[in-house]
């Protein structure tokens, strides 16, 4: 199994396509960082326009933590496409190249084959998220420095102390990795039904867009299914940045306002991953390889 996984990772990282995602993320993040570095004050004034008459804010609003939050909000919508580029190609790409039949004539079980491929896609996803964290968090901290983080939510504002932020990002990135692995599992599952990777990539993205629209629409008929859509839970990383307040309405360090929501979302995403991988195993073990 370890050998298989090594081989799969070797194949992934020898393909030029793999690096598209890393280059795209680097380009997007550096452009946003450059923009905020040059015009950060104007951006902060725009964001705080409604509060400027009622609230006096000292310190650096545009600091590394704030920039990272902005970047995560922007990028975690687009990263699924980059994940799908690899995950939805894992089986269909082999079928398209004609290597699937050669691989399956080797003395490896189909279960091992599927699991090795899925773990390889998972490792790729995690590496992409680590790269995202290095650029969005650490590079932003280096460029913009650190301070308390001030976030505007729908109908309230949150101020999180400087010393209380880093662990929240660690949690948020871990949760984002789980959400992206769910996307990878979906793309991976769909990749079994096609002999070229375009179909599964488009199908993965279409499902995500469709479910995201359902998740965000406030129409009662959709409310019953919303809790079960993985897209509803993919944004739950933001829960790490909602802090409990005490009776005096002061934020309590080291707390999350709704940890139950976070746990629920984690379990639902895990259930989706198990389902997609299980379904992949079931389908692939019965599949006739005709490519």
């Amino acid at each position, binding site marked *: 199994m370890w050998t298989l996984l090594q081989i799969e990772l070797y194949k992934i990282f020898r393909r030029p396509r793999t690096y598209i995602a890393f280059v795209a993320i680097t380009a997007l993040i550096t452009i946003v960082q450059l923009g905020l570095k040059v015009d950060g004050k104007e951006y902060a004034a725009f964001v705080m326009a409604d509060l400027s008459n009622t609230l006096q804010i000292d310190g650096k609003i545009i600091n590394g933590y704030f920039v990272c939050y902005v970047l995560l909000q922007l990028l975690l919508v687009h990263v699924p496409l980059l994940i799908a580029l690899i995950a939805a190609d894992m089986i269909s790409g082999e079928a398209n190249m004609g290597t699937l039949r050669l691989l*399956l004539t080797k*003395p490896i079980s189909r279960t091992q084959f599927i699991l090795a491929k899925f773990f390889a896609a998972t490792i790729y996803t995690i590496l992409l998220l680590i790269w995202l964290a290095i650029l969005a968090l650490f590079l932003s901290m280096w460029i913009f420095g650190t301070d308390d983080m001030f976030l505007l939510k729908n109908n309230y504002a949150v101020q999180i102390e400087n010393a209380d932020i880093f662990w929240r990002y660690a949690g948020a990135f871990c949760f984002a990795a789980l959400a992206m692995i769910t996307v990878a599992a979906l793309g991976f599952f769909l990749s079994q039904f096609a002999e070229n990777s375009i179909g599964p990539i488009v199908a993965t993205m279409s499902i995500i867009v469709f479910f995201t629209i359902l998740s965000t629409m406030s129409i009662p008929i959709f409310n019953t299914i919303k809790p079960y859509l993985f897209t509803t839970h993919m944004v739950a990383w933001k829960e790490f940045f909602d802090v409990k307040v005490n009776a005096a309405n002061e934020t309590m360090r080291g707390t999350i306002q709704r940890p139950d929501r976070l746990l629920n979302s984690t379990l639902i995403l895990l259930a989706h991953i198990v389902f997609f991988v299980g379904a992949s195993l079931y389908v692939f073990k019965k599949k006739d*390889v005709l490519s």
Partner: protein
Amino acid sequence: MMQQVIEVTGLTKQFKNITAVNDLSFSVREGDVYGFLGQNGAGKSTTIRMLLTLISPTSGHIELFGMPLHSHRKEILQQVGAVIEKPDVYKYLSAYDNLKLFARLSGVKVTEQKLMQQLEMVGLAARAKDKVQTYSQGMKQRLGIAIALVHDPKLIILDEPTNGLDPQGIADIRNLILHLSREMKKTIVVSSHLLTEIEQVATKVLIIDQGKKIIEGESAELFDPAQTIVELTTMDNVFSLQQLQQSSWQKNLQPQREHALLLKLDRKLIPQLHRDLVNMSIEVLSLQPRHSLEDYFLQVTSGNQHVDAFTN
């Protein structure tokens, strides 16, 4: 006594309404070069894919090396090397990297020297480090064969190994098959739609059409110019078959076609057969000797496609 390497019994594969392979039985002995002959779409590739567990049979039984394939897949495939149709490999890797990767997948650790020896054998040593995307079809085919051989398998399965090759490439593959059989004592199953290719390398031949076995036998006999296939049509084929099975002609009987009985015999024995049919009260409608296996094959398969395929 030579061991049976492949034993296939009643193999059938149904794809929705199409029966790709229909109740096929055959066996391959150790050391055979087993020619698997049939027109395009006859069921050769489907059968080979079932031997390699790429396709599940609808019914039937496959044993390799004396073990049932479905329950001993891993042990069996460790001893099998295969090239299936086009030899597709990772084009963004070099021949050396591809070979190393598939050697690891086959569960063997091979040294750089051994890998280079394999590439030397198929004439690719000089281009070992070049990416496969720069290779010709013939070079890819030879790399596919190197991959099939890298773990030193006992059985080699080559599905249409000369597809898309120029005459020199075809001759190279033919010589390689003969080398593997004679010098390295490998058992080889090779499929083709070209009779001339099979004729030059096979020790035993199976011809299939529309998923069914047409004829199976030793090449020396099948390709013997003195031997011929006689196609016999009678008023009552069931009765005629019973009579022939009880006679001395029983050993000459071949797997039957729908509306005719087939016998393989020396051309000189045809008058004797004629007399015996009359003595057995068999009412003969027609008795047609075919000149050769190729002639016979062209007759039993119909349409231009067959003529094209066998006159290539």
